[in-house]
């Protein structure tokens, strides 16, 4: 039987040892459960007691839990990977890895897989909380499956974002900052641009644009870059009875068929992940860039000088 990736085993061993992993999982689930409870209390009082009350509670619970889980995945996964390769550089174990028989691909894959294994644990832990919604009804299997695909695609992409910065930067602080920065740019930048575009364009121009085929494609592509918008749009399309896989946009002249945003989001995430992982592998090159090596040599020299001064005293 071929052995598992050494990095994966090593990282899982140290990640799951001690209390850290359990504390993180506990906090994560406490937040989810707390939000669900508060929501239930708030909605149960307001919906009254008609026949649809249960369905409404179920849907509200499901979408809230899915949203909170998505927020947590967006924030946790890039942090899990951003420290991985940069951390090896900081601990000065990077050279030992490079000088071994591990290939750059093995290193990247091991780091990504160990982070994803933990992220997957977080996602699986959400399922029982999510299933509370089934007690009330109003949520179909399609919605649940799409939510899980969305969470998994997000976890993979955002882990790859963290990994990319980790391979590029020399310190895990720098890598984490850039990874979180990238996440913020995606999550806040896209809605910001949408708002700006609708504000700039005059209503007449906007309605002309809405008829244009290019605008339909580009705008769908654009909103599918954002996990919350893509999955939210899909949810509203599902509730209005559209197909889970495609959407028919009716313009004045023709009917345009486009992929459902969640599907587009999953495909785009996959493409972005492949690109990010490939560039991470390219950055893990046995021969270090000259500038980085020189910087480290200089700081080493400074330490030597300092050490000599101390020893002279």
């Amino acid at each position, binding site marked *: 039987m071929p052995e598992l990736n050494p990095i994966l085993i090593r990282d899982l*061993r140290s990640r799951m040892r001690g209390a850290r992993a359990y504390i993180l999982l506990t906090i994560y689930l406490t937040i989810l459960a707390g939000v669900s409870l508060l929501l239930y209390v708030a909605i149960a009082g307001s919906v009254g007691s008609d026949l649809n009350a249960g369905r409404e509670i179920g849907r509200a619970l499901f979408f809230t839990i899915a949203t909170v889980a998505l927020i947590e995945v967006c924030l946790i996964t890039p942090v899990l990977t951003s420290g991985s390769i940069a951390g090896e550089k900081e601990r000065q174990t990077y050279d030992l890895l490079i000088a071994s028989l591990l290939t750059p691909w093995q290193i990247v894959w091991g780091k990504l897989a160990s982070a994803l294994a933990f992220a997957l644990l977080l996602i699986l832990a959400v399922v029982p909380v999510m299933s509370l919604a089934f007690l009330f009804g109003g949520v179909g299997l399609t919605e649940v499956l799409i939510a899980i695909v969305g969470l998994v695609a997000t976890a993979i992409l955002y882990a790859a974002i963290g990994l990319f910065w980790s391979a590029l930067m020399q310190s895990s602080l720098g890598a984490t900052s850039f990874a979180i920065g990238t996440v913020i740019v995606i999550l806040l930048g896209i809605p910001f641009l949408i708002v700006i575009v609708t504000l700039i364009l005059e209503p007449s121009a906007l309605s002309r644009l809405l008829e244009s085929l290019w605008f339909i494609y580009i705008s769908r592509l654009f909103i599918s870059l954002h996990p919350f918008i893509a999955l939210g749009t899909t949810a509203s399309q599902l509730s209005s009875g559209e197909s889970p896989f495609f959407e028919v946009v009716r313009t004045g002249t023709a009917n345009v068929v486009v992929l459902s945003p969640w599907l587009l989001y999953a495909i785009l995430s996959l493409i972005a992940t492949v690109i990010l992982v490939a560039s991470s592998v390219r950055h893990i090159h*046995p021969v270090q860039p000259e500038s980085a090596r020189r910087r480290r040599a200089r700081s080493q020299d400074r330490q030597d000088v300092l050490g000599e001064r101390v020893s002279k005293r």
Partner: protein
Amino acid sequence: MTAIVETRDLTRRYGSNLALDHLNLTIPEGAIFGFIGPNGAGKTTTMRILTTLLAPSAGEARVAGVSVVSDPRTVRRLVGFMPDFFGVYDNMKSWEYLDFFGRAYGIPAQRRQQLIGELLELVDLGHKRDDLVMSLSRGMKQRLSLARAMMHDPQLLILDEPASGLDPRARIELRELLKELRALGKTIMISSHILTELAEMCTHIGIIERGKLLAAGEVQQILRSMRPHRIVEIRIVSGAAHAEAMLRTHPDVLELRREGARDTKENESEPLDDATGPHTLLADFAGDEHALSELLAALVTAGVRISHFAEQSGDLEDIFLHVTTGIV
């Protein structure tokens, strides 16, 4: 002996800075090769090129005949590297640390388990098998690091400043360990700035400065070639003044100093007085063994009572200062 390391015109530039300047280095198989040079002389650069961590700007480097540029993977199998720092993983036990690198070198599971036990015993850490690496002392970490470098049974061990930061006991333990490794047939390349240590354990040395190899070869050979004459230490209980006069006029004595004298003026000021206790004279002697024995016989015949007559062992430190200019 065949050469395990061979570099030809090895050059490495960092921008405009020339770190290695046409280095031609040969290390024979089975040697303990001490690589000496001031900080920034190019020792680490050479070692990083030989471990495939750095590409040369020009020239060639081969390990056991394999080029580090064209076949780095094979070179990595041949070389065990211990850098001048110890990379610690959080939350990792000693055996897991070795297990991880065993996996990284593709060692089969069964062999790995056996090897971990053997290597931990070799570096005297058998009792620390289940201790977290972080909790080990610096000397223990260094030994664990050496065990790690040995995991894939490399022919050549490259150790960058292994003794730095170790206390005297840990240094002695490390030295003993290196001797054991040599007995196992490993070639060891070791860099250090603690010259006396290198002199004790190395069979060969290379002195590098500003990226250029100033001298290289067997330790004894270098000591001889760098210092053609020997220093003889003579401790005289009585007849010191007479002995001093005899030595000054001896044709093979190039220079004579009194031990503890600050300069030669003080030496010549007044004759030695036996009453002030035994005196020690240091003579730079240019003659051979026969001439030396004749000198001793002549002194004894002349009634000089000698309690100690010995050649001072060559000191690497002197050679180092003699060869290098101190400019980095």
